[in-house]
């Protein structure tokens, strides 16, 4: 038993020194979502692209990803602690669940490791935690922009389809839509779907169809993800309301973009995830190596509205994996 | 004299260093009931497993009708006409009588890929076979086996074995979980099977049940055959004593002698 422990310890020390020896520049730990999440795949591309710069500076990027989204706050906190244990020179991470993660961030700061918030958390949080900066989207303003866009295109009664009710960022999106449209006298209510419908496009489509049939005054549907927008388009079509009900979504995919080009979808609210990954890593690298820091307090990568006016460039970017 | 239907010669079985069966030799003839008696752990179930092809003997031979046979699987034993019915009879409680009766031997009708299970024929045959054993309460082959009483399940399992041409029927504690009336019914069915010329091996530790139907008795104690006798050769008390104590035969013999001495040399009458 003792031998085994000794052996493991030796191996760990060798591994640790090996990593340390390899990275004499910045060792950047990035905490992120599952790689099979299409959204995080784009962030990851930004991270990978920025990693080339880091490498050129003699550093290395280590992407620590969540295995599931079942316990997102706790798992992310554990990953932050893992990064601390690995003696990262800087940690870039989303603050999804402040209550669970903030303690870990404080532990990082206490260990002398600077933190860069990206994707979730917001500028105020970054200030509170003493983070370098916040790079990303703020859900509520993105929702506001979406609501305003709906209003300016004539929608008065919009449902916001939430396939993960209770998730703070998604609730903020729907609230933003609601407040954004209210400014012009319209209204928006949330349609929360149960977990048994998650990932089942038919169940989502049918729920939207049924809701449209029940309330003929609905003239807009907002969805919180690109896949849900595909289901929504189907539900709207089944209800026979394609011409009357406008569709807008947070995030986007290839099929969404084609619909925008065709004219059967009004818009998509993009938070430009590639930029988040790219900036989080490249700005962290600049800060740790050379003390570089932007003067802009919060770097918002979104909302970027994708509609008929910029669809061609967006499609080109999507083909290359940047959007 | 023709060769016995089933003959075990010097069967030994060890699991690693533990000898479970020691030098067992037994014979069963067609139309005879052999009662295998013994306390728990005496090796009865191991012996059954060897007979039904689950285990192979470490040494010794199994012969059928004068020929040495070698069972590699329960299926193999079944093909030789050996059928085993366990304590709870039907092992598929949630299947219908007709369906469970024909598991693995389903009657079919129709042609080509559209051959379908002939449910009606299965039900009819199953019900008829059980009723022939005197279970008249069963008249619907669609009923679930789990809804039958313990005795009825035994009857169904025995009927199944008989229907598929078993020549040796091994009954493992068929009466152990039954009430008095049901047990009597199962014993009657055992006698019916015997009448049809089937060799029955009846495992029990109920001496009364054994004496009621047995022609031939063998007592196992700690893996060895402690006694082998024909009907009427031993009394119920003798057998009970054999099963319960029985480590030292001499001690037992002495006890029996003392018993007989106190009864003027007469054994007590056989309870029947």
């Amino acid at each position, binding site marked *: 038993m003792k031998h085994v422990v000794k052996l493991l310890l030796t191996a760990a020390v060798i591994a640790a020194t090996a990593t340390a020896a390899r990275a004499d520049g910045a060792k950047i730990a990035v905490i992120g979502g599952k790689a*099979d999440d299409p959204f995080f795949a784009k962030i990851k591309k930004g991270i990978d692209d920025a990693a080339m710069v880091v490498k050129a500076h003699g550093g290395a990027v280590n992407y620590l990803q969540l295995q599931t989204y079942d316990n997102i706050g706790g798992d992310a906190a554990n990953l932050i602690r893992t990064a601390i244990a690995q003696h990262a020179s800087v940690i870039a991470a989303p603050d999804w669940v402040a209550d669970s993660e903030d303690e870990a961030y404080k532990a990082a700061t206490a260990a002398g490791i600077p933190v860069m918030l990206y994707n979730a958390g917001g500028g105020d949080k970054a200030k509170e935690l003493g983070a370098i900066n916040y790079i990303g989207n703020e859900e509520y303003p993105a929702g506001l922009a979406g609501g305003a866009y709906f209003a300016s295109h004539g929608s008065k009664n919009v449902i916001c389809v939430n396939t993960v*009710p209770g998730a703070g960022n998604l609730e903020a999106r729907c609230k933003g839509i609601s407040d954004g449209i209210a400014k012009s006298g319209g209204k928006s209510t949330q349609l929360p779907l149960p977990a048994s419908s998650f*990932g089942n496009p038919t169940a989502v489509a049918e729920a939207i169809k*049924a809701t449209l049939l029940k309330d003929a005054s609905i003239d807009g549907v907002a969805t919180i993800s690109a896949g849900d927008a595909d289901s929504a388009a189907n539900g709207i079509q089944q209800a026979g309301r394609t011409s009357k009900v406008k569709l807008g979504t947070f995030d986007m995919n290839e099929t969404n973009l084609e619909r925008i080009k065709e004219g059967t979808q009004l818009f998509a609210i993009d938070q430009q995830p590639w930029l988040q990954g790219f900036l989080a890593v490249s700005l962290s690298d600049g800060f740790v190596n050379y003390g570089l820091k932007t003067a802009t307090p919060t770097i918002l990568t979104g909302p970027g509205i994708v509609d008929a006016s910029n669809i061609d460039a967006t499609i080109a970017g999507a083909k290359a*994996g940047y959007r | 004299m023709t060769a016995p239907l089933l003959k075990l010669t010097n069967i030994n079985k060890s699991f690693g260093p533990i000898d479970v069966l020691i030098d067992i030799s037994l014979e069963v003839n067609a139309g005879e009931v052999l009662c295998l008696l013994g306390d728990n752990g005496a090796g009865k179930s191991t012996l059954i497993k060897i007979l039904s092809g689950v285990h192979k003997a470490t040494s010794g031979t199994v012969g059928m009708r004068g020929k040495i046979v070698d069972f590699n699987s329960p*299926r193999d034993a079944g093909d030789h006409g050996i059928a085993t019915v366990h304590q709870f009879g039907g092992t*598929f409680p*949630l299947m219908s009588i007709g369906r469970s009766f024909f*598991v693995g031997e*389903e009657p079919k009708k129709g042609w080509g890929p559209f051959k379908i299970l002939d449910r009606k024929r299965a039900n009819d045959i199953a019900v008829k076979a059980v009723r022939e054993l005197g279970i008249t309460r069963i008249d619907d082959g669609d009923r679930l086996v789990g809804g039958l009483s313990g005795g009825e399940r035994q009857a169904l399992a025995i009927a199944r074995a008989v229907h598929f041409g078993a020549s040796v029927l091994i009954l493992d504690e068929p009466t152990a979980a039954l009430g008095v009336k049901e047990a009597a019914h199962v014993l009657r069915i055992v006698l019916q099977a015997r009448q049809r010329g089937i060799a029955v091996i009846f495992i029990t530790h109920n001496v009364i049940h054994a004496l009621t139907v047995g022609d031939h008795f063998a007592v196992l104690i700690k893996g060895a055959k402690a006694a082998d006798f024909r009907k009427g050769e031993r009394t119920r008390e003798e057998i009970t004593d054999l099963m319960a104590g029985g480590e030292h035969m001499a001690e037992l013999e002495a006890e029996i002698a003392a018993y007989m001495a106190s009864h003027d040399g007469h054994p007590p009458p056989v309870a029947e």
Partner: protein
Amino acid sequence: MSNQTRRPALGNLLRRPETGSLLGLVTVFVFFAVFGGADFASATGAASWLNVAASLGIVALPIGLLMIAGELDISIGSMIPAGSMAVAIVSGHFHAPILVGIGTALAIGAVVGFINGVLVVRTAVPSFIVTLGTLFAVAGLVLGLSVILTGTTSVGIKAGPEAKWLLGHFIGGTFQVTIFWWIAAALLFGFVLHYSHYGNWILAMGGDKVSARNAGIPTERVTILLFMCSGVSAAFVGLSQAILYNSAQVSAGQSYIFNAIISVVVGGVLLTGGYGSVVGIVLGTITFAIVNQGIYYTGFDANWASLIIGILLLLAVLMNNTFRKLALAYSPARGKSRT
């Protein structure tokens, strides 16, 4: 047997595995017909739950047969996205003919099912654990391959009109063509379970695998075939959804695992095997779909959807248990004198 009389209809009904689920279905239908109003009872309302039931039902059928045979397959949770990604990558990204894409997807389903079956049969590890392993393995494989081959995790596919007509269009604008595939699958599985002798084998295997093997049933071959059925069916659902919704995502379909198991159990299949019927599985799937979708026709706040789903499903399962007990206890001679 000449004196085998017709049993009274009640007795026959009581002991059928689907009786409980039929009552469960009627209960939830009446519930939503009352609270959901005219829209729920209309053709488009029916399409709401039929469409959901169809894709779920195609997976639930083989899962049900596996459960009757005493096994479980949860790898469907990643076989569904594997099927949709396969067709989207092969035919959408690489522009191969749609038949090649469909063939690839189904072949992957068959291979994964075969691996599941062989592992279960050879290792004697419970199928829940084996398929839990393949659930993750397939998910990882799909993700890895998708990123290597296409650089993204969400692939679009534009199927031709024939493929759309066969797999991905709405009849009359409301009913998914998948419903007909489901009906075909139900007829096929119904034939296998209730009319062919294989059905007897499956029931016997679920009742007692050892006895079934001793009775001469090739239990290993049947087990492997059943796992292949569920793999192929899951891949089929995945590919038809990709064709229907014009896109495929790497991570979708985990909710099918529980939804399929719930449908099967609500349909009267015993979780431990040996008892169940195809009609029951179909009814259970419809019940689940109605409960899951009916809420949107009612005036209830959708926040309560999960609660209502949970309660109605519990009721349906309790109904099943009651009827299974009745089926076991049922005997025509009850009360008469016994031998």
